C-alpha cells in the first residue's frame, strides 16, 4: 500500500506551527463579527426605518455571496478604487471578508436571542430607574448571550474552516502550508489527511470548551 504513515506523523509538527495563523484569523474575525452582529441586531430591533433597511440589505448581501467572492472583492477589487495605494494586506483582507460575512449571520443569531428575553425584564429595568441602554447592557444582553452561545460557537467552527480560503490570496495558514508540503513531496493523501485531523481535533476541543461555557452560563437559571 502506498501510504507513508511516518511521513504523515512527521508532517504534524510542521503543520501545527501554522495553526496559530489559522486561529488568529478565525478568532479576530469572530470578535469583529460579534461586535458588528450585535450592532446590526440592535439596529434592526430599533425599528428606525432607514437604518433597518440598510442593515437588512447588508445582511442579505453578505449571507448570499460566497466567502471566496467576498474575499476577492476586498483583496483584488477594492485596491482598484485607490490606485497606487495597496493598503490592504492579505491577512487584513481575509479578516475583513470573514468578519463581514459572519457578522451578517451572527446578526440573525443575536436578534433571535434578544427577542427570546422576556419583555418584562426591560420593564423591570425601567421601573427601577435604569435607562434603556443600562438595562440592555446589564440585563438583556447577558441573557441573550447565553442563548446565543451555541450558535456563536457554530460560526467560530465555520470560521476556522473558512479561514483556509486565505491561501487563495497568499496567506500561509495551516492549509497553505499543507499544500506546499503536499506538492513538494507528492504525498497528497498523507498531507491532507494530517491537516484534516488537525481541523477535527481543534473543533472537538472547541466544542468541549463551548459545553463548559454553556454550563457556567446556565447555572444561574437552573
Amino acid at each position, binding site marked *: 500500500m502506498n501510504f507513508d504513515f511516518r511521513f504523515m506523523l512527521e508532517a504534524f509538527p510542521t503543520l501545527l506551527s501554522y495553526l496559530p495563523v489559522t486561529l488568529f484569523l478565525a478568532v479576530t474575525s469572530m470578535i469583529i463579527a460579534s461586535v458588528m452582529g450585535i450592532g446590526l441586531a440592535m439596529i434592526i430591533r430599533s425599528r428606525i426605518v432607514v437604518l433597518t433597511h440598510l442593515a437588512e440589505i447588508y445582511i442579505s448581501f453578505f449571507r448570499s455571496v460566497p466567502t471566496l467572492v467576498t474575499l476577492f472583492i476586498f483583496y483584488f477589487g477594492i485596491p482598484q478604487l485607490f490606485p497606487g495605494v495597496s493598503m490592504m494586506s492579505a491577512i487584513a483582507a481575509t479578516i475583513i471578508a470573514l468578519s463581514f460575512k459572519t457578522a451578517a449571520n451572527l446578526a440573525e443569531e443575536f436578534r433571535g436571542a434578544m427577542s427570546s428575553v*422576556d419583555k*418584562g425584564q426591560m420593564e*423591570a429595568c425601567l421601573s*427601577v430607574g435604569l*435607562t434603556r441602554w443600562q438595562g440592555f447592557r446589564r440585563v438583556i444582553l447577558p441573557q441573550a448571550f447565553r442563548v446565543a452561545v451555541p450558535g456563536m460557537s457554530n460560526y467560530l467552527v465555520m470560521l476556522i474552516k473558512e479561514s483556509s480560503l486565505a491561501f487563495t490570496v497568499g496567506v500561509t495558514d495551516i492549509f497553505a502550508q499543507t499544500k506546499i508540503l503536499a506538492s513538494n513531496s507528492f504525498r497528497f493523501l498523507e498531507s491532507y489527511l494530517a491537516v484534516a485531523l488537525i481541523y477535527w481535533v481543534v473543533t472537538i476541543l472547541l466544542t468541549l470548551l463551548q459545553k463548559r461555557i454553556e454550563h457556567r452560563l446556565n447555572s444561574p437559571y437552573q
Partner: protein
Amino acid sequence: MLTISHLHKSFNNVAVLKDISLEIEQGQVVAIIGPSGSGKSTLLRCINLLEKPDSGIIQIADTRIDAEKLTSKDETALRAHTGMVFQHYNLFKNKTALENITEALIIGKKMPVVEARKVGMALLERVGLQHKADSYPAMLSGGQQQRVAIARALAVKPKVILFDEPTSALDPELVHEVLQVIRSIVDNQTTLVLVTHEMSFARDVANRVIFMADGVIVEDNTAEAFFTQPQHERTRKFLQTSAK
C-alpha cells in the same frame, strides 16, 4: 401627591382609558379593582410610563408631565418617584436576589457598592430573605421572588409603589407571605397603588378603593364604605359575583 388628569389611552383605536382623573394623597393605600379589560393595569402602567398615555397630565410630587409632550427626561424623572411590582415578578434572571436590589442603586444611582450591598441586605432582611441573598431567581419560589421584587422596588425609595396584580401568578399557599410583606410596608409615608383581585386583602389593607369598568372610574370610595355600602349598581353586581 399623585395627580392624574384627563388621561386617555387607546390600543389600536380601542379606548382603554377614557378621561381618567384621580388624586391620591401621600401615604394612601389605594386598591384598584374591576373586571378584566377594565383598564386598571393600563392605568397603573401609565403612571410610570411603561405605557405611554395618548393625552393627559400626570404629576407626582414636583414632577409634572404632559403625555402629548413627553421627553425621555420626563420619563426618567417620573420613574424616579415610582417603584413597581409586577404580576410575574420580573426579577433580573441573570442576577442574584441581592444584585436584583443593588443594581438600580449601583448603576442607576451610582451608590458605592459597599453601601448598596448594605442597603440591599437590610431590605432582604425586611422581607425575610437575607439567607437567599446569593440565590438566583430560578432557585426561588414564586412567593420568594415576589418578596425580592418588593425589596427591589423599595430600594429606590419611591414616593409611590405600583403593584400590578402582585399575587395573581402565585400558588394559593404562597399568596399569604407576599400579602404579609405588602402589609408590612404600609407606613403612612409611602403611597401604594395596588391592582388586585384579592378582595379581602383590599378591604383589609387599603384605605381607599377605586372600581374601574370599561376604561372609566365607576366608584371611588373609602374601603369601608366601598364594601359595605357600594354606591353604584355596577359595583354591587361586581362585588356579588366576586364574593361567590
